[in-house]
């Protein structure tokens, strides 16, 4: 299930873009995002040039276009919501079109970068940026174990579902809550074992 979401993130293809240093990609992406967010509604030139840069990068990075479009769909409810509300009560500045364009550009930028950069590269950049060590450790461990826990949750849910015969939402909620609770307990116990494993190899 998670692969549906994360899908091509795993099958990172070798490309010109993926070989660029992580710091460079993150820096450029940040610049693009900041510029786009700050750009006034009328700055068509900026939006077009951003679109061109993105198009080139997507082509070079060999990230599947369909995958990108599917991810873009995530944005649509938010954009629709704003459009709807603004149609009834116009907002202070810019129409929903500006918002849609800006968010699309920024979203695509992030997706392209995250699909062409290994996570350890990102962690390295964060370390260089003097992000507090405890936060980096937490982020690293989260990333390492989120797939493990998602799979564990899915297995537990399936096992529970195969033994649940009462129908109805109440029963489902009880079952699912127990699964979530168990997941936390297991995560907690695993954390202790990880601590032991870290100490066993000299961590202080």
């Amino acid at each position, binding site marked *: 299930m998670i692969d549906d979401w994360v899908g091509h993130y795993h099958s990172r293809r070798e490309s010109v873009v993926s070989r660029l240093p992580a710091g460079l990609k993150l820096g450029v992406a940040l610049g693009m995002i900041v510029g786009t967010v700050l750009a006034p509604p009328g700055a068509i030139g900026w939006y077009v040039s951003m679109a061109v840069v993105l198009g080139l990068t997507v082509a070079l990075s060999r990230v599947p276009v369909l995958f990108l479009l599917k991810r873009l769909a995530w944005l649509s409810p938010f954009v629709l919501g704003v459009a709807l509300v603004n149609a009834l009560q116009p907002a202070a500045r810019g129409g929903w079109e500006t918002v849609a364009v800006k968010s699309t550009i920024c979203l695509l930028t992030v997706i392209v970068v995250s699909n062409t950069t290994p996570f*350890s590269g990102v962690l390295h950049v964060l370390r260089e940026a003097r992000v507090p060590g405890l936060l980096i450790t937490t982020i*690293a461990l989260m990333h390492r174990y989120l797939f493990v826990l998602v799979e564990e949750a899915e297995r537990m849910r399936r096992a529970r579902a195969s033994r649940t015969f009462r129908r109805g939402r109440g029963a489902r909620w009880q079952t699912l809550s127990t699964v979530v609770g168990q997941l936390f307990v297991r995560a907690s116990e695993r954390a202790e*074992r990880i601590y032991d494993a870290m100490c*066993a190899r*000299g961590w202080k």
Partner: protein
Amino acid sequence: MNAAIEVTGLSYRYHDGTEALRGVSFRVAPGECVGLLGPNGSGKSTLLLHLNGLLPEKAGWDGAVRILGHAVTPENLETIRRQVGLVFQDPDDQLFCPTIAEDVAFGPQQLGLSEAAVKERAEKALAQTGLAGFGHRATHHLSHGEKRRACLAGVLACEPSILALDEPTSDLDPRGRREFKALLQGIAATKLIATHDLELVVELCSRAIVLDHGAVVADGPVTELLNDEALMLAHGLERPHILRHKHPHG
């Protein structure tokens, strides 16, 4: 000559009261390969944790553990953990770094080695376990067998003189098992292997210790112990097939 591992009268009780170990005593000589057998819940894992001083002392702990003559005390933990490489039961617990390369480098880094030395050790350990070139791979992409080998690599990179392994071949397919067994055969360190894989014990170990309900019930040469069908059955084990017939896969 100092024993590699010397356990005397070790008793341990968990904080909820369960007795995990009761007066366990045994010695392992340097270079020996000893199998630690016993049914589930017999205390094998708990015993291995003691070899690295990973269990809190204030909980009901009695007896002594000495590694190469050094007592396992809070002051000595660094030395102890350098000498004893512990391979945990669940590879996912041990491989906590994002990539294999970082994980294998973790131990040497904690030892305070230079960057060049860390790299050298990591590459050597990866090559030793047949994982050369796997460095950049993300941990959660590996197969179970590859993960187990990566765990071993991470421990070997610290160059310990004693290896303690907790169920190293469980969940491995036959090929993975054969490969892992071959790996272990090629390592010269003193080995203590807690396992249900009786065939592995016959193939690798010279001596076996049987644990049941936290106490040592037998300690002796492998063939003698494992051929004793009554003993095996009495303690939740059985006589392995390899001793019954001539095994074609050696």
